[in-house]
């Protein structure tokens, strides 16, 4: 099966600054694919190269097998939900949603009917006559979604669409977006810097750093078996052990990632690693301890129970498979 | 008091009018004292020169040295601007043309001049001493400054012989070069130009009974307007600014127009083929008078300037500079700048053929007090220019 979107050695430079550096990746038909990375890592530039708002300086972009490297946006079977929604302020909500049909010459009656259907789909029935400025942030986001979906694109691009929403709304929109994707069955390419969001929604995640792909994999792979130190550090809360500390605590050579929630913290367990509680943080769903285990090494421990006070002597232990050796790549 | 309301409205004008009438009532001054250190004059551009443009033309510096009166000049480009400035006040003197002078007198803006305090007054050209545009009811309201005429300026390449009639700008015809005059002649764009049309009709159609081009009854006035409407078809652009006309004759192919000698002098100095002529019908002209504001703050310096303004040297230099004629005939001889033929060239010998600008009023002598007043000239000339 051809990939919905494929990058072949794609680079994009702005003057001296290389935003995307020889990136190759494939987005499969129908999957929820997330580009994850800190700001400035090149993920948005990649998205813009799929949408056609930015052309690569090198390499090739394919959409459904066809070369789309320098195709203008309007010639691509791809639609975008913009970070700021980019709703047309001088048009009603209905006209905004129907815009893609209007420029294709669909008759007014037909396009309004379909626009209202789309509004129904994003749970905004009856708002068609309003102006975007009269809607809340969440509602605008849904309008942007409806507008992008009305052309029935084979790929939908979403550029941090939930960034401007408050936490509660964001969480419910995450669920809704995922459900919507299943319902319409098209490929979603989603950009975010929020690893939680990426892990919870995606079929696969591509982690970016400084213009390069660090790792592509399912959320589980990314979380449990980070390919690089950067991924280990960026995704989830974990302990990255190196050198002497790694050897002493895990018996492994090189870098080892030990997830904080896999560590058991007890008052005394024979054979376990002894340490002293340096910090206790209450984070609602769990407690985070910072435990000094000697050698100037501190381990993060996430646990459900609050049993120990500051300065308490404790022992830490973990199952063998909780330690993940990070392959020695270019540092 | 009644007249002082003439051109103004509102409370401001009333206040000004009271101030004016107060001064007006005092009558002419009887003596000239020590100068106040300055004198403020409203003048035509080029009328009061201190050598800034050309070192040869300076009749201010010497006056300031000998009297201690600093001369401050505010130039005005139209008679109306002059009237407006004088209405505002704050000036001592104004070089008013005949279409402004009577308005200033009637409005009470200027004061009577005691000619005894201007020692050289008796040497002024006799024809001007009691001219009607500054003498009202036997009282003098100013000292003549300079005069000139509105001649017919023509292109000597087109006219091998000088045209002898204004017909070349009023009637549709072929000029001596065989091409029509349409689009190649100009006329003045001020309403006062209606008088030029009336002047032409005086000769062309004596049956109309026009005696004075500034005094027209309804029929005469209608005939003049008809002539001007006919002229509108010939004139692509009217002139109102001397320098615009100079440019038109240089760059736009105009070959005949009413003009001041000033334009002709400048065009000739640039070796343009132009000359001027006084056609058989006569010409209109302008005569300017230096008048003193009713509320002048520096009357002593003002009287000193009035005397200075008619000294032969100044008069000759100014005539040369402006293409005008001195009001003292001895200024015509021996002036290096003017040359001995200057006065003749500028119209001295045509005095009798000149009908000097006056503001037309309803109450006129020659038509039994039934003349068309100036405000109608304005409205109708606007209509003529608009093609109505």
């Amino acid at each position: 099966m051809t990939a919905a979107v494929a990058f072949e050695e794609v680079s994009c430079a702005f003057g001296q600054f290389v935003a995307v550096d020889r990136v190759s990746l494939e987005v499969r038909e129908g999957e929820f694919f997330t580009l994850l990375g800190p700001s400035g890592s090149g993920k948005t530039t990649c998205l813009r190269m799929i949408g056609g708002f930015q052309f690569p300086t090198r390499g090739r972009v394919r959409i459904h097998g066809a070369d789309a490297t320098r195709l203008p946006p309007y010639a691509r079977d791809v639609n975008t939900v913009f970070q700021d929604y980019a709703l047309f302020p001088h048009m009603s909500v209905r006209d905004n949603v129907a815009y893609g049909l209007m420029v294709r010459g669909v008759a007014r009656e037909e396009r309004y009917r379909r626009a209202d259907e789309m509004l129904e789909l994003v749970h905004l029935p009856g708002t068609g006559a309003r102006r975007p400025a009269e809607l809340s942030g969440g509602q605008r986001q849904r309008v942007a979604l409806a507008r992008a979906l009305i052309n029935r694109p084979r790929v939908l691009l979403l550029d941090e669409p939930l960034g401007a929403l408050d936490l509660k709304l964001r969480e419910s929109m995450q669920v809704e977006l995922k459900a919507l994707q299943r319902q319409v069955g098209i490929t979603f390419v989603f950009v975010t810097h929020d690893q939680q969001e990426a892990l919870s929604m995606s079929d696969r995640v591509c982690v970016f750093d400084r213009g390069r792909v660090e790792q592509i994999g399912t959320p589980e792979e990314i979380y449990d078996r980070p390919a690089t130190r950067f991924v280990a550090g960026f995704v989830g809360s974990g302990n990255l052990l190196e050198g002497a500390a790694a050897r002493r605590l895990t018996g492994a050579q090189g870098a080892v990632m030990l997830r904080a929630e896999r560590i058991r913290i007890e008052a005394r367990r024979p054979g376990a690693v002894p340490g002293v509680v340096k910090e206790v943080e209450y984070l609602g769903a769990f407690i985070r301890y910072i435990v000094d285990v000697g050698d100037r090494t501190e381990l993060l421990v996430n646990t459900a129970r609050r049993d120990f006070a500051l300065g308490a002597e404790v022992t830490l232990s973990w199952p063998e498979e909780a330690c993940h050796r990070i392959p020695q790549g270019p540092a | 008091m009644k007249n002082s309301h003439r051109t103004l409205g509102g409370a401001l004008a009333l206040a000004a009018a009271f101030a004016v009438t107060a001064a007006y009532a005092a009558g002419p001054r009887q003596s000239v004292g020590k100068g106040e250190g300055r004198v403020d004059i409203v003048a035509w551009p080029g009328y009061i020169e201190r050598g800034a443009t050309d070192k040869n033309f300076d009749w201010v510096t010497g006056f300031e040295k000998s009297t201690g009166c600093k001369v401050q000049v505010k130039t005005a480009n139209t008679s109306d601007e002059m009237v407006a400035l004088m209405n505002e006040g704050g000036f001592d003197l104004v070089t008013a043309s005949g279409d402004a002078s009577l308005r200033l007198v009637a409005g009470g803006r200027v004061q009577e001049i005691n000619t005894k305090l201007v020692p050289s007054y008796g040497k002024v050209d006799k024809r001007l001493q009691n001219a009607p545009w500054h003498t009202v009811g036997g009282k003098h309201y100013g000292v003549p400054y300079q005069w000139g005429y509105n001649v017919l300026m023509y292109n000597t390449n087109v006219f091998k012989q000088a045209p002898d009639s204004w017909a070349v700008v009023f009637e549709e015809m072929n000029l001596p070069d065989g091409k029509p005059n349409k689009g190649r002649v100009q006329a003045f764009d001020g309403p006062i130009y209606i008088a030029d049309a009336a002047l032409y009709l005086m000769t062309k159609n004596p049956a109309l009974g026009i005696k004075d081009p500034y005094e027209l009854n309804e029929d005469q006035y209608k005939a003049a307007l008809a002539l001007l409407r006919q002229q509108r078809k010939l004139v692509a652009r009217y002139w109102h600014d001397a320098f615009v006309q100079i440019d038109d004759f240089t760059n736009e192919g105009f070959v005949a127009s009413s003009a001041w000698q000033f334009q002709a002098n400048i065009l000739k100095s640039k070796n343009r083929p132009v000359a001027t002529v006084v056609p058989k019908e006569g010409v209109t002209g302008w005569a300017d008078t230096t008048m003193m504001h009713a509320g002048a703050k520096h009357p002593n310096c003002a009287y000193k300037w009035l005397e200075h303004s008619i000294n032969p040297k100044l008069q000759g230099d100014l005539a040369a500079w402006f293409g005008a004629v001195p009001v003292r005939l001895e200024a015509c001889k021996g002036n290096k700048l003017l040359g001995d033929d200057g006065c003749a060239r500028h119209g001295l010998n045509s005095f009798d053929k000149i009908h000097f600008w006056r503001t037309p009023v309803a109450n006129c002598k020659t038509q039994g007090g039934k003349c068309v007043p100036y405000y109608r000239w304005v409205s109708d000339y606007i209509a003529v220019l608009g093609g109505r």
Partner: protein
Amino acid sequence: MSALARSLSTTLYGRRGLALALLLAPPLLWLGIVYCGSLLALLANSFYGLDEFSGVIKREFTLKNFVELAAPANRDVIARTVGMAAAVTVGCALVAFPIAYLMARYTRGWVRAALYLGVMLPLWSSYLVRVYAWKLLLAREGVVNWMFAEAGLSWLLQGILAVPGIGGPSLSISSLGTFIVFVYIWLPFMILPIQAALERVPQSLIEASADLGAHDAATFRKVILPLALPGVIAGSIFTFSLTLGDYIIPGIIGDSSLYLGQVVYLQQGTAGNVPLAAAFTLVPITVMAVYLAVAKRMGAFDAL
């Protein structure tokens, strides 16, 4: 002294209204007396008459001036001026839009600064000098005519000048010339508001339009133009009202047909017919009031 100042400031602090009134009194007095006062005086004057016989203003209520306004010659002047103002406004908008578009969307840094300077620079030099310069450019012996001749297009220029109503013996002696100079002189007042409006259109809106399938022309028509329209209207208020009131340009360039400003000047100054002049000045005021009301409906002031 300081105690007094403190008690004064305490008093004022407690009475915000008083402090505000003290601050606003001078400008409001200025506006009220000088501005509105003179307008009212004008209005009052337009209802006075002129004595037919002596030409003296009679302070009695009459509507004669407004009847006279409707005389054919005066109707011509009004129609000519309003027509010219409308044509100049359209002309300015057509010329200014591409320039403003270029400035707002395709330039940045020093190139944009240079363009700004280029647009503003003419405003720093004398208006009269520029008008006279144009007279020379458009003259029969001028550069424009010469360029047409050099390009072998004299027939075209002559053809245009032969059109009755806008033509004449040369460009500088035609309504077309008046129009050209008006457009040139007021152009900056159109470019700047359009440029400001275009600058406020987010890039993402244009990308969104293209993303949804609109070609560049459709994006321009459906998104950019509607969003720039308030700027065009704001600019048109300038060009329209400035043309309505101008009396210099038609005096120097054109076929000597008179415009409103010139007629007001003539009636007021030369003729001393202040009442009729006042009635005339009410024409542009009325026209502008209607224009502004329409512009407001079209949302021109939402963007200000």
